[in-house]
Each structure stands twice: as C-alpha cells, then as structure tokens.
C-alpha cells in the first residue's frame, strides 16, 4: 500500500512565523503535490514537483514556497504566515511523471494562524 505521511495533524502558529509542513511518501513516487482545502472551494493546487529539486507553481502559489531535496520528501513553506493561510493542507503523490496516474493523499495538516 502507498503511504503518504504528513508531519503534523494540527498546527497553531502566529502571524509572521515561518511554517514548515513536511510530507513523506514511501513508494518511490516521482510526483508530489501540495493542496489546500477550504470549505466550498474544494482542493486547490499550491505547488507540485515531478523530480528532486524541481517545482512547478499550481493555481495559488502566492505566499508559499516548496522544497524537494530528496525524492521521498516534499516540504511546503509559509515564509511569513498570515491568517488567510488558515486551512487544511493536503499532500499527495503519484508514481510516474508524464503519465496518467492516480494521486494518493496524506491525512492532512490543519493549520490555524492566529
């Protein structure tokens, strides 16, 4: 079974803090994704990566950055957290770049920015 894990289930941070959300997959997947989920908006793609050190902007990259130093790990960084970044963050991975692949999701991190 594919396993995607996220470092925290719940986080509370203060405005202006730098926040790191970590995601790890254990199936040697090439693609990794970060989404945010908000009520009534579904999931929106923030960033994705199809290889180590590669990244592509998604639909809502503003205020976020990412890092992929190792194939199994994809980090989402909020450089200076703001209250409008309070949300549920979901990481996903899929096997091969350039192919139609199913995405597998982690359990999510619920972030509250005060």
């Amino acid at each position, binding site marked *: 079974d594919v396993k*995607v894990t996220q470092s925290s289930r719940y986080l509370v941070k203060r405005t202006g803090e730098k926040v790191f959300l970590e995601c790890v997959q254990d199936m040697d997947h090439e*693609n990794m*994704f970060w*989404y945010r989920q908000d009520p*009534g*908006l*579904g*999931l*929106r*793609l923030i960033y*994705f990566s*199809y290889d180590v050190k590669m990244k*592509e902007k*998604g639909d809502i990259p503003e205020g976020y950055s990412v890092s992929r130093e190792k194939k199994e790990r994809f980090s989402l960084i909020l450089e200076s957290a703001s209250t409008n970044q309070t949300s549920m963050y*979901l990481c*996903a991975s*899929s096997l091969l*770049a*350039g192919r*139609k*692949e*199913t*995405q*597998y*999701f*982690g*359990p*999510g991190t619920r972030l509250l920015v005060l």
Partner: protein
Amino acid sequence: AQSVTQPDIHITVSEGASLELRCNYSYGATPYLFWYVQSPGQGLQLLLKYFSGDTLVQGIKGFEAEFKRSQSSFNLRKPSVHWSDAAEYFCAVFNAGGTSYGKLTFGQGTILTVHP
C-alpha cells in the same frame, strides 16, 4: 482551462436509500476522471477512476460511476447507502496536456449526511 462542478453542496439520504452525486466537467479532450471520498478529519481516498474503455466504472465500497461524454458528466452512484458512507465526496479531472500536466482539478465537494 478545465473545471469541475459538483452542483450539490450537501445531500441527505436515509440509510438503505439509493444515492447519486452529480459531477460535471469542462475539458477540451478525453477526460480522465476520479472520485475521492474524505471521511471527517481524514485525507482523501480514491473511490474509482475513469481513464478509457467501459463508461460504467466500478469502485470500492459498492460505488459506481458512469461517464457520459454527451452530458459532460461523471455521476457517482450507490444502490443502498450505509451510515458509514457519510463523508465528503470530490470529483476531479486530470490535466493531460500542456504545462500543467499531472495536475488534478477538483470540484467543490458534496457533503453526504446519512439518516438512520
């Protein structure tokens, strides 16, 4: 750009009743479509997917979906709902072209409540 619409934000059914969740998509080529389910506080679990072939797709937990190109729809169905099906359901389309290859576009989600 592709888009997915789930017209029903919230649906309530009685346990044992049949269920249909609607999904309409906008996509310029043959779509690759997914249904995911999210239980409270959990991540998304794949229910089923359509890539090609038979337009009636069977999934896990007794769910099925039918791809109708003429109606740009991919509705999810279950003949008899169980209380454990209460969750939020998401339809998504895979982007198979251009610079956004590999991206999923999701609908807004449909929350399913099941009455005993």
